[in-house]
């Protein structure tokens, strides 16, 4: 919560049902999404499509944790942007280094025969 209570009242305020219900709802979403991920890992073949699906669901979970649990959704706009904008650099780093890794792979394993060694070793 953005506002800070300073008035010193004795005695406690009863629990807000709505807030607790929301927490339970977000918990359920996080649990269900994790279950879907594990289920998908068992059912579907490994591949780019599945990985994209996993990353998508990870971002869904991240959104709920950051916005609801960390309460960022309810902060001022300027705070939200000061946290979210710098994270764009992470995306850039990912794209830049992912390209780099493809280059390293090309340099190290451009000789096709190298990857076939395990077949020969198979007893």
């Amino acid at each position, binding site marked *: 919560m*953005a506002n*800070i*209570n*300073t*008035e*010193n*009242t004795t005695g*406690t*305020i009863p*629990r*807000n049902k709505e807030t*607790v219900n929301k*927490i339970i709802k977000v*918990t359920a979403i*996080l*649990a269900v999404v*994790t*279950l879907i*991920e*594990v289920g998908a*890992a*068992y059912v579907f073949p*490994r591949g780019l499509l599945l*990985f994209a699906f*996993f*990353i998508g669901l*990870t971002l869904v*979970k*991240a959104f709920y*944790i*950051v916005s609801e*649990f*960390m309460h960022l959704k309810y*902060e*001022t706009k*300027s*705070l939200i942007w*000061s*946290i979210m904008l*710098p*994270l764009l650099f*992470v995306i850039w*780093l*990912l794209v830049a*280094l*992912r390209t*780099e*890794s*493809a280059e*390293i*792979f090309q340099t*190290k*394993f451009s000789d096709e025969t*190298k*990857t*076939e*060694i*395990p*077949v020969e070793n*198979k007893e």
Partner: protein
Amino acid sequence: MATTATIKSPSKSTWSGGQAPMKASYGKLMMWFFLLSDAFTFSALLITYGVIRYSYPQYNPEIHGEVFKFSTEYWPIPDYVFDGVPFLHGMHLPLIFVSIMTFILILSSVTMVLAVEAGHRRDRKDVEKWMLWTIVGGLTFLGCQAWEWSHFITGKEEGLKGVADATKFFGANLVQNQYGPQGFADLFFFITGFHGTHVFSGVVLNFIVFYNVVVGTYDKRGHYEMVEKVGLYWHFVDLVWVFVFTFFYLI
């Protein structure tokens, strides 16, 4: 931290004191920026994992044989590395144990939210209860990780033949790795270890806050904002695990 301080001259700028820019207290704001920097560190680590992983050949059934075997020639499929569950020895159960760990961490995040919520109501007993559950969750997670590490270090029965000499070795450490390229083991230790360190320091911070709640420090202070600040850190640890789970175990 009195935000209700009367501003004497209205010409004062936002940053000249007496008010909370971004409507968040100094401590909370600084926690957010610390977490941002920590997010950069973890992203760098996870991206490094991706880079090293994709600079190695991937397992391909057509080239490497239909049955997956550990080999230093290609990156291992995590499903075959992390398939152990305590008390179920020798069974191939990928993702089961890690998803239990994920649930534990998510649940401890939930109890933390409930502690923060109780803090808003200044309900000391409630904060105590939820903080304690959060600490229990954190410690359970650390215990699971200890099991996971010892399992990884001990290795699997089949072992792997060394390249230089024909003796088999089992498990992984920083110089040899049964599961695949050396980088795989190194990154496993570094990334999950760095995350585990965060969980550990989170548990310590949670305990300090719990202690302060019990002795009534925050009652005297008049607000439970410290629970919120440490809560932010704890949720961040959970958030990082969500990403580690995806990039290390699922993909």
